[in-house]
């Protein structure tokens, strides 16, 4: 019993350590600028920092850009990733080489790809465009989602598809009506991860974007690097940047935790 209390105490401490910076950022975003560095927890509450962010820094545009690019890149990559992952899982398509290429593409240093991508995109007129950024993020998401979904599909017993196919479904029908619904929690989890991957991406957004197409991370960086950092504005921006993550955590934590404990898809 004593041991249990001890380990729970340790956990609470750990959670506080993890959460404290986030909570403090949230707090800083909600107090007037002059109180940013005060030790008082909540001297007074205001939404001025958020208002300033949207009114003066055009943060609404950045936010929309991020939402559009991150969502579209997942929507574009997911069907392809599902089919490729299924092919890898069931037909051993391409064997080890194809799997390795998928993994390897995840491991290329983004910096090494930045310049070639920029030059290529400039030639075809895709710099400073959300389309260009969506394409890049879809290309990043594709192997990532493929790999994750491959794992989920491998965990689904093949007999399920055998049953569907003798029940009258085509191979495609078995995939569509049985495999996909069964893998749904995993697919949801993968989609959330892919979204967040794109949402947080900084390097390509910086290189390929312009002022109209800047995403949230680019905007945050410029807030932080501009002369005389306004910490309260930064805090508001960071709070908003974390918002989708918190929504995801709140509403689909079940999917996230169950879907991503690898190999435990029921």
């Amino acid at each position, binding site marked *: 019993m004593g041991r249990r209390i001890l380990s729970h105490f340790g956990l609470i401490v750990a959670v506080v350590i993890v959460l404290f910076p986030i909570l403090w950022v949230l707090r800083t975003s909600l107090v007037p600028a002059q109180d940013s560095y005060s030790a008082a927890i909540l001297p007074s509450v205001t939404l001025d920092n958020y208002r300033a962010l949207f009114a003066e820094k055009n943060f609404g545009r950045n936010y929309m850009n991020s939402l559009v690019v991150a969502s579209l890149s997942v929507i574009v990559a997911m069907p392809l990733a599902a089919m490729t992952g299924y092919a890898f899982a069931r037909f051993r398509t391409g064997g080890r080489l194809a799997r390795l290429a998928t993994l390897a593409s995840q491991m290329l240093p983004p910096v090494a790809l930045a310049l070639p991508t920029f030059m290529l995109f400039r030639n075809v007129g895709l710099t400073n465009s959300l389309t260009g950024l969506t394409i890049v993020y879809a290309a990043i998401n594709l192997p990532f989602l493929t790999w994750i979904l491959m794992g989920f599909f491998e965990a689904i*017993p093949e*007999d*399920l598809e*055998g*049953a*569907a*196919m*003798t*029940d*009258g*479904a*085509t*191979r495609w*029908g078995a995939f569509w*009506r*049985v495999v996909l*619904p*069964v893998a*749904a929690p995993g697919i949801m989890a993968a989609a959330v991860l892919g979204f967040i991957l794109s949402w947080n991406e900084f390097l390509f957004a910086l290189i390929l974007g312009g002022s109209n197409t800047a995403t949230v991370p680019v905007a945050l960086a410029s807030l932080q690097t501009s002369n005389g950092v306004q910490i309260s504005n930064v805090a508001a921006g960071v709070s908003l940047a974390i918002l989708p993550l918190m929504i995801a955590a709140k509403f689909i934590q079940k999917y996230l935790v169950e879907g991503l404990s690898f190999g435990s898809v*029921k």
Partner: protein
Amino acid sequence: MSEIKLNKVSRDYGLGIFGVRDVSLEIEEGEFMVLLGPSGCGKSTTLRMIAGLEETTDGQISIAGRDVTRLAPRHRNVAVVFQSYALYPHMSVRENMRFGMKMRKTPRDEQDRRIAQAASVLGLQPYLDRKPSALSGGQRQRVALGRAIVREPDVFLMDEPLSNLDAKLRGEMRQELVKLHRRVGKTTVFVTHDHVEAMTMGDRICIMRNGRVEQVGVPLEVYARPRNTFVAQFLATPAMNLIEAQLNAEGEAVMLSAGPIAGPLPEREAALYRAAVERKLLFGLRAEDIVTQPRPGAQAFQGIVTVLEALGPENLIVVETAGQSVSARVDRHFLPRIGDEVTLYADLAHTHLFDAASGDAIAREV
């Protein structure tokens, strides 16, 4: 009409590895055919080839006179009951049953009628709206059956459907399946490694080993006349006793000499096996043909009891004698102690003889 014909069917995995090799088998309309054998013998592969879930690399398979060798599973009109049940986990029991009919565009009211009927036959009414994960193993098994039945397929293919059940439930489902088959009357192929299931369920059984067919026949006939020692031993627990033996002619009589068991064969057996005199043989006798009371044609022998298994209704004993272990299935009142010397009687009227080298049964001269 939904007979199944396999004509020299093979499953070649490449590199000279065969899952199934040159299997020919005819399963009649309405027949309950059991494929029996140890794990890896190719019985499940054969079933999956009939279903179209495994590629047939050589030979032809026809169902109801139609060559289905290259057809997709959905065009074969077969229903498979998987060992794992393979229920759709995201669908309710009702939707699981409906799926196949929906795929085949059965009218909706006909779907409902068949589901209601199958649920009533299988006692699944209370569970129709549950997900499979909320069911016990036995209930899942019934759902898998129900899903197959409502389809009204030409052929049922069952891949060890009882092996995930408790011993208790397995015995009950065995009888239920046979009753079901009698009612539905559809051609059924049933794969199992359990010889009790094979004996009790099959109209005929097909015993396989190493991808090939060893013997096909009515269970009691195969039991009475196994074609070789593998079949003889596989089809019973305890396995048939096998003892190196020789026959010698002494005038009219044929004398058997098999380790501890020696004596003249009864008249009928003597006539049948006269030609096998002086060959190297294996003498086979089933455990239930070794009895505790003398009877005509039975030869007495002594042995030390090394195993006694009191099952309740009867006892299994093993005696050691002349370096041989001999198993006997005896009356429940015969309860010797381990180490006792007992006298048993080998009923030579049930003699089996096999060639010592090949293991094949000695041809009887009828």
